[in-house]
């Protein structure tokens, strides 16, 4: 069987540094469970399971970015937009743990490194940018799509530099760090574009079908939205204002049963 390793393998970063990042990842996930519980209600729990399953599926879809080099979705930005940063990081971690334990992808020793980069750093970077962009951009439908794309590109590059940092601390081979950083960043800008396209498409689809299920829209867009603003902001779409205006009065999501 050909090599389908997609994450950091065993033995690339030394034992002590790997162990330190395992502890860091465990601490971060504990915080995510504590903070994520506030978001996790009867509706978000199954949705978060779906987000994890979807990320698992799309991570199998390696796309070519350069001759002999491919890339795949990391998923942090997608998860953060759909289920929020805390639960989002847990979704990506779930995928990484299952891939490691059952599919032999991403070393067991390196699990903390992979969780730190892709689930913690990737999701955090993606969400921070999503939060900033959604506040800056006009309340138009394209704003969420554009935000998803831009945040994905940045998030993937930042996550790739997380690996460079880990390698700087505990790399097992003497190599030029700047070469590694450049090479990782170059490849991951291209992978980020692919991630951005997938994330933007997925988020736009969910926002069109069930805008009330998009965490970023609920938390970062809903409070200030009035029915009038919603109507003027989306003249071309009939279903979106109807669905979003249902949430307009309430900062907390309430529409699932009512709609």
């Amino acid at each position: 069987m050909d090599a389908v390793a997609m994450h950091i393998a065993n033995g690339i970063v030394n034992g002590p540094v790997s162990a330190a990042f395992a502890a860091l990842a465990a601490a971060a996930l504990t915080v995510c469970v504590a903070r994520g519980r506030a978001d996790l209600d009867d509706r978000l729990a199954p949705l978060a399971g779906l987000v994890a399953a979807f990320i698992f599926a799309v991570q199998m879809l390696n796309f070519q970015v350069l001759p002999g080099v491919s890339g795949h979705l990391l998923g942090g930005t997608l998860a953060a937009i759909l289920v929020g940063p805390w639960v989002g990081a847990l979704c990506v971690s779930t995928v990484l743990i299952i891939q490691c334990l059952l599919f032999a992808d991403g070393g067991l020793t390196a699990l903390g490194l992979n969780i730190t980069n892709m689930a913690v750093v990737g999701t955090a970077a993606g969400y921070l940018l999503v939060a900033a962009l959604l506040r800056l951009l006009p309340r138009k439908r394209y704003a969420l799509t554009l935000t998803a794309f831009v945040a994905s590109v940045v998030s993937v590059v930042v996550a790739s530099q997380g690996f460079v940092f880990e390698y700087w601390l505990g790399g097992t081979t003497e190599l030029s760090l700047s070469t590694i950083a450049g090479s990782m960043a170059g490849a991951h800008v291209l992978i980020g574009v692919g991630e951005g396209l997938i994330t933007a498409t997925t988020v736009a689809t969910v926002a069109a079908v069930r805008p009330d299920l998009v965490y970023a829209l609920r938390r970062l867009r809903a409070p200030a939205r009035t029915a009038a603003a919603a109507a003027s902001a989306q003249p071309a779409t009939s279903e979106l204002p109807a669905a979003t205006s249902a949430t307009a009065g309430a900062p907390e999501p309430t529409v699932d049963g009512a709609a």
Partner: protein
Amino acid sequence: MTRRLAWFIAGGLLVALLLAGVVSNFASSSPDGLDATARKGCTTDADGTITGGTCMARQEKDHQMKDSPLADYGIKGIDNPYLSTGLSGALGVVLTFGVGAGAFWLVRRRGRTASASASPTAPGSGEN
């Protein structure tokens, strides 16, 4: 969970199953950005095993789970590569959803509905 949400989840799972079960067979088999960078500077044979040179992956060790029945996104014992990859992917989707949704359900904030939860129910009530 309302029926409407159940339909959305079911639809999403169907898409994920198709992606992991079918489309995955058309994915690129080149090493990904990390793996390609890790192997830069080394020479590899046809199987991707490092034969010489200096690169990040020089000291790479085998995976502890390399003998797992699902190792490397295939199912041990199924020789047809399409079937093996597709089934392992579909199984992965089901397992990830089961483990994820199950764990999230266990740690979720109790309270009947999202609207009811606006009332202050103490979240740190002990379990998990």
